[in-house]
């Protein structure tokens, strides 16, 4: 298969030995052996990964994955030799979840290399890889990876069962798998964690989680994923604990800002003017003088404009990027305010909301917050703070009901597990984090010797 095979090794390890066979008398050698295939595989070919395969279909798949197959007349079996080699992107810095301090490598599209990147971090015989092919047409390699001495059997079995249940023609990205295996399909919150950083996946494995690698994508899934995991950055563990704790606090604050800032503004300025300090009220009222829209419409306009700009920023070709961003900032920042269509406070609110949403280290959580923000804005515009709190209540019910592979989503907050608070709101110093999170790595809870 041209393009899938490393032609150099094909030439060196298969064709060259086969040609050299012609120069020597082979019949005595052959007679001393039971059959040609064994002879070929053991004496002639010098490739590392050689296997005699019975199954024709499997052999076809192997051929299509870039391996070489040698058919010998008179045999139903055939030889499989791994000389596959596709032109690959090399390991680069991660584009998402960037850190200042910490490893700077990311997964690639190559399955083997991704496994190797993890293995390089965890050199333990108990790190198991359980691979299978999913997709009747694409036959994509999907593998479970876990540390068998730590990960809970229940979770591993559950992941395996859910993966085996998938019947689909093709898997092109780990997102396909994510939607198939998550506990609830209709929820705004992610219940599967994904990362392109080997150190994040390795840390998850050490906590007893299960990683799911999919060939062809640098994004590796990690389950079970809890609410708090989306607020933990790999840098938290590389930095000192005190600053990590404070920054984590900042992330929770920004989570609330990005979720509630526009809706609180709407609620307070249209229903609860008495809650503002008098001078602030007068200031806000002055800015709203002459603005033709109600606060809700104003907020909606600005939020949608921002979402359009954001989406355009991702999709547009790099070359026109600058032009679009200039137009965008001018339209939002200056012209809208000067034209008197939007009040200046609203621009501030939308900006702080937008910036806060990028503080969260995981993109999947900020996406769910983006959607919920609009729901809360609607609630605030119709029912004021009462509406917001009704919404919060509903949201809490929903969050507490969610589970990720059997583990309650809000663990360790609800159910409250005091022992796991050391890595929730706070990040305790490493010598104090002696145990693994409960309910996940329940086979081996102890991380450190107790007396240090």
């Amino acid at each position: 298969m041209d393009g899938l095979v490393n032609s150099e090794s094909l030439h060196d390890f298969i064709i060259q030995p086969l040609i050299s066979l012609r120069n020597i008398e082979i019949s005595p050698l052959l007679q001393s052996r039971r059959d040609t295939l064994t002879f070929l595989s053991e004496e002639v070919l010098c490739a590392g990964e050689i296997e005699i395969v019975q199954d024709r279909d499997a052999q076809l798949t192997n051929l299509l994955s870039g391996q070489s197959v040698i058919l010998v007349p008179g045999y139903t079996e055939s030889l499989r030799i791994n000389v596959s080699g596709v032109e690959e992107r090399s390991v680069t810095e991660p584009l998402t979840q960037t850190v200042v301090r910490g490893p700077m490598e990311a997964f690639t599209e190559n399955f083997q290399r991704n496994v190797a990147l993890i293995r390089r971090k965890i050199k333990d015989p108990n790190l198991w890889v359980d691979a299978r092919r999913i997709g009747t047409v694409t036959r994509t390699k999907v593998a479970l990876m876990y540390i068998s001495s730590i990960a809970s059997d229940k979770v591993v079995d559950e992941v395996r069962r859910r993966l085996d249940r998938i019947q689909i023609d093709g898997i092109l990205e780990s997102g396909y798998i994510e939607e198939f295996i998550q506990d609830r399909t209709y929820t705004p919150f992610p219940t599967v964690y994904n990362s392109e950083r080997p150190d994040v996946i390795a840390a998850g494995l050490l906590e007893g989680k299960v990683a799911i690698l999919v060939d062809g994508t640098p994004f590796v899934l990690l389950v079970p994923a809890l609410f708090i995991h989306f607020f933990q950055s790999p840098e938290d563990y590389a930095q000192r604990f005190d600053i990590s704790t404070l920054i984590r606090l900042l992330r929770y604050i920004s989570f609330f800002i990005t979720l509630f800032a526009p809706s609180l503004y709407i609620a307070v300025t249209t229903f609860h003017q008495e809650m503002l300090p008098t001078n602030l009220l007068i200031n806000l009222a002055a800015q709203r003088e002459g603005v033709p829209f109600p606060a809700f419409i104003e907020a909606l306009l600005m939020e949608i404009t921002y979402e359009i700009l954001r989406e355009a920023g991702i999709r547009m070709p790099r070359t026109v990027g600058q032009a679009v961003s200039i137009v965008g900032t001018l339209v939002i920042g200056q012209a809208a305010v000067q034209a008197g269509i939007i009040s200046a406070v609203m621009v501030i609110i939308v900006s702080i909301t937008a910036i806060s949403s990028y503080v969260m280290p995981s993109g999947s959580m900020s996406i769910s917050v983006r959607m919920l923000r609009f729901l809360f804005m609607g609630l605030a515009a119709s029912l004021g703070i009462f509406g917001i709190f009704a919404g919060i209540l509903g949201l809490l019910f929903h969050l507490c009901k969610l589970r990720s592979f059997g583990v309650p989503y809000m663990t360790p907050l609800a159910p409250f597990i005091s022992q796991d608070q050391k890595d929730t709101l706070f990040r305790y110093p490493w010598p104090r984090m002696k145990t693994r999170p409960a309910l996940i790595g329940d086979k081996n809870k102890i991380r450190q010797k107790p007396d240090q």
Partner: protein
Amino acid sequence: MKKIGIGLLCGLLLLMVTTGCWNRRELNTLAIQLGTGIDKVGNQYRLSVQVVNPGQVAAGYNSATMRSPVTLYAATAPTLFEAFRKLTTLSPRKVYGAHIRVLILGESLAREGVDKVLDLLSRDAENRTDFYIMIARRNTAENTLKVLTLLEKIPSNKLYSSLDASSHAWAPTTAFTLDQLISQLVTEGLNPVLTGVQIQGDPRIGETPKNVEEIEPATRLVLSDLAVFHKARMIGWLNEQESRGYNLIMNNVKSTAASLTCPGGGKLTVEVLRNNTKIKGHVEDGEPSINIHIKTEANIAEVNCEIDLDNPVTIKKVEEQMKDTAFELMEKSVEAAQNRYKTDIFGFGQAIFRSNPKYWDQVSERWTEKFVRLKVNYSGVCLIRRSGTTGNTFLKDIKR
């Protein structure tokens, strides 16, 4: 799942429909009322509200044309609520009352009784009750609200903050909010007082922008002494000394300045840091009496005479004199209440009630006559803590 989805969708659609009705008010549809004035005209109430003009007040929105930062709407109606609603015929926006800073009552209304006007303000859900109440001395509330002020562009805000500041640092003033006033009105054996506000200068100049163009405005609003009430009716004013004594007795003094006379002539001023006054009632042989105990701590703030502050004996003398001055102030105040106004503004009746409820039941009907003849005993401790950054004054070292 589908059912829940449809339900959610319907809910959201319904929310969209509810937007725009019910209690929703945009900020630019509100006339934010910061000061309220109530006067009595014949049998009717004259309500005047000071509404802020946000564009003129907020920073960064100064337009070239100078317009008044506030405007005044006034309406006359038999009841206050009607008057409030009648304001809409004048104002382009609905008058919004949650941010009232001061309520000014005309002196003539106060002399007829303030109780009836307070009901609406305490009943209405929109109002907060944390605004200060003042009496417009020798004037109407309406005129008082018309005076433009410098520094604080909004006159109501000016009154609010200057009363707030002076009630903390100057003994003769005291600040009462609506809920405090009402609780004073309903408490047995206690009559309220309220701070007065006075227009100094010509009220007509005060209305014009000219008033705020000068360094020294021609017309200004000054907080004056305390108005004394009997039940809900205002009956007179205490002067500055008596107001000071009143606040001393009522334990309202947080910090103030008090001047004393030096033994060898000249003045010495102390800054009162802390003061604590306790009122205790006693009944002996059917005769009530009151014991007032003060504990005051002060620093020496200003010395204008030759005095040896290094000597503990002198400090003791100063302390004694401070105590005497305090007693004198309180005596004056009590005397004014007993003889001039015959009203128990100090809550002595309340103190008697607390110490001897049975006796109070007997005398509560004719408490005023008992109060007039009430014996008041004073006791106390005054302490000088520090003398500032120097010891003795340099005055006596000046070469003559």
